Structure formats: C-alpha cells, structure tokens
C-alpha cells in the first residue's frame, strides 16, 4: 500500500512527472531563447511562474461556470498523470498491462476535450473561438498520430508500451524501420501540445489566448501544469515507442540514455517551434488529411507487410 502510494505520488507519478514537466519547460524556453538570440530564463523560472500563478486572484467573467472551470484542469491533470504511470521510465514500469497504449492515448485526449469545454464554459468570444479551433485541430492531427503509433505496436506484436520498448532490445530502435511514422508522431505530438506551428487554438494575435483567455490564478496554474506534464508524457511515450532503451549493464546508464533521448526530443520540438510560422486552420486541415493521413496509411501498410 505504501509502495503504491509512492509510485502514485513520487515516482513515476505526481512528483516525478511535475518535476520533469517543469524541467522540460525550462529546456524548451532556454532553447527557444537561444534560437532567438536571447538569454532565456534561469532554471527555476518555470517553478517561480507556477508559484506566482497560484498566488494570483481567481476571476471569471459573468456567466461563466466556476465549477466547470475548476474541474476541467483538475480532470485533465489527473488524466495525463495517470497516462504517465504506464510509460516505462528507463525501463522501469510498475503498472504496465497489455493494451495500455490504447489507454494512454485515450487519456491523452482528455485534455483536448477539456480545453474545448473550458473555452465554452468561459463565455468570452475569444475563448469560444479558441475552443472551436482546438477541436478542428484535433480532427486534423489525431488520425495521423494514431496511424503512426500503431506501427510500433504491430511491429512488436503487443499493445503494451513496456513490451514495445522491450522488443526493441532485439529488433533495434523502431525509428529505423518507421522514420515516416516517427515524423508523423512528432507532428501529431506538436498538434496535441498546441505548440508552434500548430498553436492555432491559442494564437495570440488572433484569439488572444484561446480557451484559456479568461482563466487566472489557481485554475490557470493547473492548466499550465497540464501542458507541461502532457509534453513530458508525450515525449516519454515517443521515446519508448521509437527509440527504446538498450539493455545495458548498469541501470544508471539506462537512465542516462533515457534522459539523453528525452533531451533530443525536446530539441526537436523546440527547433520546429522556432523555425516555422503558425499554420492557418484550413492549411492544417489540408495538410493533415491530404498528406499526413496517406503517409500514415502507407507507413502502416509497410509495417504490416514487414511483420509478415
């Protein structure tokens, strides 16, 4: 029982994931700043921002539903934290079971729905626009993402992330067999995280801050955490599905490799953020259905034939 609580609250649960989330945010902001010839924040900045948000006044416009607005970020945070529990961290998995990949993907979609509902619940015009856009965006990136992530599952013959990760010890990292799938998965992750170039739902110059325009204080702090934890859970998922951690003698070496892979993914995400302008929603829809989905199908067929 105590062990269970430890797993839930410290590692690989709440404490660990939030710390990783804040660390990811720092690396991301620092990299982005360096790309832009700026200095970037100090290591404690994300934590300081979080603390500051918790101390701010909590307001909502008239007509917005306070109870819904409070529940949504909490439910989202619970969902992504739970999703993170099933992902092996450097090979260590207390909770995996057959089919947990599906559960993880389902849980990772909860924040998107919550984001949409948050927009509707906030009543302001920008919130509603942002919420509508987030759903439109969801329909464009989710299908390629699912197609791409099915690849490693089919190749390894299991729908459990831990098993997929383990099978890469003999077969080699799956990114070598499905680079296209990896690209699609990264694109899907960027869409899910609503990062540049797919930050359409929260495009500052168009919809001010999207669904979260009217959120302040503690609620916004929780949304912030949701974004960060979602990012690291997504990164860990992709690392496990496409890179794996090779079977090595020392577990500390495995940890080092895992951290290295995570940093590499972070770099990929930051670089794409820095280099591209934001897409328009119709451009994204065109891209998603005309290019990404066919590519995903092609990759999937390739994997199926390879498995045979």
């Amino acid at each position, binding site marked *: 029982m105590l062990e269970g609580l430890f797993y839930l609250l410290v590692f690989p649960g709440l404490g660990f994931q939030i710390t990783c989330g804040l660390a990811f945010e720092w690396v991301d902001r620092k990299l982005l700043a360096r790309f832009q010839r700026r200095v970037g924040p100090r290591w404690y900045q994300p934590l300081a921002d979080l603390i500051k948000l918790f101390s701010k006044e909590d307001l909502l416009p008239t007509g917005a539903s306070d109870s819904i607005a409070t529940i949504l970020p909490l439910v989202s945070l619970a969902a992504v934290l739970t999703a993170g529990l099933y992902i092996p961290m450097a090979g260590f998995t207390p909770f995996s079971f057959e089919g947990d990949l599906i559960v993880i993907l389902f849980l990772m979609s909860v924040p998107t729905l919550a984001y949409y509902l948050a927009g509707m619940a906030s009543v302001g015009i920008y919130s509603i626009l942002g919420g509508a856009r987030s759903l439109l965006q969801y329909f464009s990136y989710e299908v390629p993402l699912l197609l791409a992530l099915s690849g490693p599952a089919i190749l390894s013959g299991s729908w459990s992330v831990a098993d997929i990760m383990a099978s890469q010890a003999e077969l080699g990292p799956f990114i070598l067999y499905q680079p296209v799938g990896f690209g699609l998965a990264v694109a899907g992750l960027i869409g899910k995280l609503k990062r*540049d*170039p797919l930050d*359409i739902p929260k495009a500052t110059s168009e*919809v*001010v801050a999207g669904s979260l325009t009217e959120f302040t204080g503690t609620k916004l702090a929780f949304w912030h955490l949701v974004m960060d934890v979602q990012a690291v859970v997504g990164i860990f998922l992709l690392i496990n599905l496409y890179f794996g951690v090779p079977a090595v003698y020392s577990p500390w070496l495995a940890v080092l490799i895992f951290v290295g892979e995570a940093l590499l993914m972070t770099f990929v995400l930051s670089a794409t953020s820095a280099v591209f302008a934001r897409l328009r929603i119709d451009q994204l829809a065109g891209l998603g259905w005309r290019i990404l989905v066919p590519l995903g199908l092609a990759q999937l067929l390739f994997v199926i034939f390879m498995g045979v």
Partner: protein
Amino acid sequence: MTKTTIPIGPQHPLLKEPISLNIDISGEDVLGGSLRIGYVHRGIERLAQERTYVQNVHLIERICGICSHVHTTTYCYAVESLLGVEIPVRAQYIRALMCELERIHSHLLWFGILAKHVGLEMVFMHSWHNREIVLDIMEALSGGRVIHAANQIGGVRFDLDAEREAMVRNMLHKLEEQVGGVLDGIVHETSIRARTRGVAPITAEQIRQYCVVGPVARASGVDVDMRRDDPLPPYDRLDFNVITHQDGDAWARTMVRVEETRESLKLCEMILDQMPGGPVTTRVSRKVPAGETVVRSEAPRGEVFYYLRSVGSDHPARLKIRTPTLAALSLIPVQLSEIQVADIPVVLAGIDLCIACADR
C-alpha cells in the same frame, strides 16, 4: 454558423496603438468590419497654432515615434520656404540620412511585427536585434534613439566629424550584412509566404479610389514615391529605385518593404559619399513672412502632406497635416471581406498602421 462580432481594440495583443475594429465573423470566415479611430487624438493642428514656429518643431516630432524625423523635416522645409531661405547642402544631406535610417528602422520594426503576428517569433527577434543597430547609429548621430530632435528651422542640430562618420559607416556595413541575412530569410522562407501569399489582394483601381499611398500602393503596381516625384533636396541628386510589385497581396507588400530596406541601405552609403562639407545651419528670423506653402515628402508609410500658412508673426496661422496611414485606414473595411480570421493579423500588419500619425 452564427454571426458574431469580435472586438479588436482598443486594447488587443494585435495592436501597437489603440484603434477599435469590430469584425463580423461566421466560423472562421470574416464577413466585414467597421473601424473607429481617434483614441490618440491630441489636437496637434490646434496646438500648433498656439505655439511659435520653433516650439512647433518639438511638437511635430512627437506626432509619431517611428516617423518623427520625416514630420519635422517636412515642417522645417515648409517654414524655410516661407522664410525664403535655403539651408546649407550639408544639412540637406544629414536630413536625408536620418530619413533613410528612419525608413530602415521602420521596415525592420515592421518585419518583426508581421513575423510575430504569424507566429514566427524568431524573425521578430532577429529583426529587432538589427533594429538596435540602426537605433545605435541614430543615437551616435543625434543623441536620441527614437526622438532625435535632429532638425531645427534653418538646418540640423548636429554635425558629423570624420571620426563619427567612419563609425557610422562601420555600423552601416555591419547592419547591411546582418539585415541582408534576415531579408534573405524572409524572402526564401516558406511559412511566411504560405501565410501571406494571396491574402487580401488590393487592386490598383482600389488604391486609386481610396487615395492610398506608400508601400501598400506600390505593392499593387501604383508607381508613386514622393522622393522621386516631388523631391525635397537632396533626393533630386540621389539615384535610387522605386520598388513596385503587381500582385497587391500581403506577400507583395512584404516584398516591397524588403527591397525598400535594401534600397535605403544603399542610399545611406550614397548620402555619406556625396555629402559635402560646410555649415549645417543658417540663421533665420523668428517672424515668418506672410504666405502659404504645401510640402509633400515620403515617410516610411507613404506621402506626408503639410500645408502651412503664416500671417507675418511668430505663430503659424494654420498647419494642416495629412499622414499616410489616414489614407490606408479607409481600406481596412474593404479588405476585411473574403478573408479568414487567421488572416486578420496579416491584413492589419500589411497596412503598417501608425495610428498616432493618423490621429494626430
């Protein structure tokens, strides 16, 4: 989908200065919009009548932050024409140098704003980094980064000695290299082009009907530039190209400004090469003889029009200013149909609003 109205302004992340746009949308399509200005109206024309000509130089400079020098240049030329004096040639060149530097500064600022609105912050940061070099040059010359107080009636307030001129040339070289990189990036970069190509095209006929000036007009093929058409000295002795494009969409407006920046950099070199020696100011009397005059010049955003009338005292009897943004604003409701919500920032950025100028 139902029709809703987005209020943009007076405060909005999109706007540097306050205007009020009410845009009707349905889903992601924009149906139209209406515009209100006047939030920064300070009554400059009335204030000018209550101040002396010399005090007005300081007043006019503060009409706008980005085109401050062009306003004072036009005003000083107007007063000097009523006084019947011609300022020393060296002063003419210094005025032109500051004008071209201001044009570069304005366009660099504009690239940043456009990039930020389409989500490409990197270009924003790099462009504004280069803008700092321009501001450093202006500070080295005049002592001020944004408000230079370079002009006075009868000439300019400062001179360049050989050492300072060498320093300015060095900084211009450095600027040319770095800006060249950013401009090439903007031209070849795909995502800015994807966001601006084909967006809100304006025909040459619309430009003529709405009397639009500046880069917006030139991007639709209307060949008008006051530096060439009605040149204040020394522009009649300088050799430069007037950039036009035919498409009239947001991409054309971007390209016009990119190439104008390059032209202005060349012009700065030319001005420094051609600048003769001599004094930089001449004595003028405080009382301006009676008369009226009209002066037009080319600000970074287009034609600036000044009408000045004097009745023989040291206060102007009437000063009328028409700034280029005022003409471009009437185009906004026209452009706000047949675009998407995501294009609104691109449309607003393309006009390069300078509301402080428009409101006066």
